[in-house]
């Protein structure tokens, strides 16, 4: 068992990442990541497949050596300028892998004890098992558990040594859509009880928005992934810095308009703006920003899909195609009004 450095001074952020770059051969994966996490905070990093999310987590854990940049965990520099200063086994991070990576030959209790120093309190395994609601399963083998139970054991195992930072890689990738919400709620509560600072990566915007205190959007271009926006989820949903970010968070339509201060005018009429803009802009329309009134009118319904509470309709308007919510799918035509204030993205 390694000796863990405990030089951390109070008030240091659990995680600090500056200018982190990694390449795979000649291909840049991360193109300068900046990120900081506050004590007890749950940050979710949202990005499309292949944007470098997992690579970022692996670099923080020490499984990948970055080419440049700084990573500081609990106030200790662990990686700087392409050199690993603290090896994986002494970084004091917890990591829950997408496939959980439970040790198949050890029982649940032995899995959890694995990360604890030999002289540690004997209560800790029971304590963390209780925390995740798995007290009754200590003597089981991982293969005898369901996917959701395995995930909770993996969580308990990484919490047991009291890491100063927890990393979660797509924790709900192997869980049914219908169970994600309740598992997410449990997870948030567990992390809250432990006061754990957590960085989670996912490509699922619903998970990201429901769980995150703050959301970091990872966008990749030819020079690698960077944090394109870092803010509260509702703010990124309403006020994304680009069309790409807007689309990552959920259904989004855009209509071209001309802005003049807090007012914009376009083919669908005049509307109030959230942000002061001038010249050509793209107005972000979430489905809830559009009122669709069925009946005679200039707008044609191209398609409608039923999703339970109502219909998501795709509309052909003089300003282009937009998506809106509708209560019926009977009418083939109608008219739309925009509900301001709207968010304007400057046209570049």
């Amino acid at each position, binding site marked *: 068992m*390694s000796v863990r450095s405990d030089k951390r001074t109070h008030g240091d952020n659990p995680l600090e990442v500056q200018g982190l770059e990694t390449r795979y051969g000649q291909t840049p994966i991360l193109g300068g990541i900046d990120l900081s996490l506050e004590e007890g905070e749950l940050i979710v990093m949202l990005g499309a497949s292949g944007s470098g999310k997992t690579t970022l987590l692996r670099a923080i854990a020490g499984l990948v050596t970055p080419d440049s940049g700084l990573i500081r965990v609990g106030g200790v520099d662990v990686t700087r300028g392409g050199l690993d200063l603290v090896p994986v086994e002494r970084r004091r991070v917890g990591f829950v892998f997408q496939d959980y990576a439970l040790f*198949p030959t*050890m029982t649940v209790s032995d899995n959890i004890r694995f990360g604890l120093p030999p002289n540690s309190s004997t209560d800790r395994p029971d304590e963390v098992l209780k925390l995740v609601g798995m007290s009754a399963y200590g003597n089981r083998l991982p293969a005898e558990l369901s996917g959701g139970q395995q995930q909770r054991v993996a969580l308990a195992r*990484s919490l047991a040594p009291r890491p100063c930072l927890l990393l979660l890689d797509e924790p709900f990738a192997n869980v049914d859509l219908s169970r994600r919400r309740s598992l997410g709620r449990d997870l948030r509560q567990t992390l809250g009880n432990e006061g754990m600072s957590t960085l989670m990566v996912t490509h699922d915007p619903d998970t990201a928005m429901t769980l995150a205190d703050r959301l970091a959007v990872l966008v990749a271009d030819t020079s690698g992934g960077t944090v394109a926006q870092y803010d509260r989820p509702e703010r990124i949903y309403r006020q994304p810095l680009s069309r790409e970010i807007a689309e990552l968070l959920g259904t989004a339509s855009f209509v071209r308009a001309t802005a003049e201060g807090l007012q914009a005018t376009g083919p669908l009429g005049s509307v109030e703006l959230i942000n002061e803009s001038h010249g050509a802009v793209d107005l972000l329309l979430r489905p809830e920003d559009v009122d669709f009134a069925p009946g005679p009118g200039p707008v044609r319904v191209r398609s409608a899909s039923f999703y339970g509470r109502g219909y998501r309709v795709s509309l052909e308007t003089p300003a282009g195609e937009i998506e809106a919510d509708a209560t019926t799918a009977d009418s083939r035509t109608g008219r739309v009004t925009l509900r301001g204030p709207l968010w304007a993205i400057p046209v570049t």
Partner: protein
Amino acid sequence: MTAVAASIAIGLTLLPLFGLIAGALEVDQDPFGVTTGWVEAIAQTSVPQLFGRTMALALVVSTGSILIGGWLAWVEQRGRLTGARWFGTLSLLPLALPSYLLAATLQTTLGPAGWIGRSIGVQQPFDGFWAAAAVLILVTSPYVHLLTGASLARAPAEEEDAARILGASGFRVFRRVTLPRLRPALAFSGLLTALYVISDFGAVATLRCPVLTWRLYQAVDLKRFGDAIALGLPLLAATVPLLLATRAIHGRARPGRIGVANPRPPTLRPISTTSKVATFTIYFVVIGLGVVAPVVSLVGWIIGGVGGAASFVDTLLPIWDTLRLAFLGGTVTLILAGAPAWVAARGGTKRAFWVEQAVYATSAFPGILLAFGLLLLALAGARIFATENAREIYGTLTASGILLMAGYATRFLAEAFASMKTAFLQLDTGQSDSARVLGASFWKRVRYVEFPAVRPGVAAAFVICALAITKELPATLLLSGPMGLRPLSVRIFDRYEDAFLADAGLSGALLTVLALTIVLLTLKWRRFT
């Protein structure tokens, strides 16, 4: 179909065993008087010592192979080491060499007169127990290397990463996480190695290491069948438990991967300087002795022969015998393996499982024992069915080649079976069904859908068998003589024994080229499956 498959698989195993048992039981009624006296022979000859030495050799070689092959596999799969891939591939090449050829070339290289032996001042000839152990480790460690490497490559690397993140040292990760995953592969390859050693004839005969197989051959060669039975029974007794253990371990439920697979390549870790030095020393020795020394020796023998009076035309003739035997033997083996492979591929039933076990058991018996068993069977047959002219019938049987073909089919059934089973597994019932839905007739389906799907596998099975037959020594040595054939393998063995090095060298070079082709084809085939 299952019945046919089972009778082939089980029948081929039982034929030589029947021969051995018949020989052992009917000692008093033998008209030649050659099988008599095996009970006395056990008491008089040094059978217990031979048995002990055979087991000791198996233990030493298995241990050495596991250490060398396991270490190299681990370094290559988990360590960050420049050149490991190239050296790793080169260190697998001894796999291609027949053990008698490696033994012969190393004996001339490492002995007092050899170019390595002379330069380091060796006084002792390279032979006996430890020489045989060294040669057999060189030949078998690639098997351990390949099997363990494949097992490491399959083991989910995230488990090791998770252990490290939880603070475990490199050694603790290896002991608690990696080793439990590897244990079945290590045990399986260790047992395979032990079986190989017990069965080996070429290396121990060339290096004059007195073990059961070599003494058995000598006894048969001198027509002292009684002594041979006395040696064959303990050889059988040594093989059976190992064989059962191998079958029990193989395919035993391994701890599965937990969760849904999203495999990432393992995290390669820098390795210590000591480990690097150790690894490159092993590469140096394995490649030096297993690849460079044999090639240099063979070339040296040939060059020496050009200056001398060796007749190369005479050496080229055995190729024709080798090719004939390989073609015939390969065809017979393939035909016999077809039904068991089909049953196993369609399998799922308990019976299909046992057919597969029987096939592997069949091919695991030592070649010398199979060949001798077949000789005894022919003898028993001649005795039972033709008491009057038993001697002629026996002569006709041995000269006809039936015995040799049965020997090859028994010895290489598993090789043909494995490739053909893989080929039959390529048959996608979905494709056949959609061809049927599209209105294709039975023949059209076979011609355009099913046959093209199995063709590469069946061809590979044939090539693998034919070339394995080319390398085979003990059965060929015992059974091809009465047929009047002198294939390459026999020629190398005889000529080396008689110190016609140039002649042995040319045959050896030809055989090496053929054998390397097997390895390349096998590796290429493995990539598709």
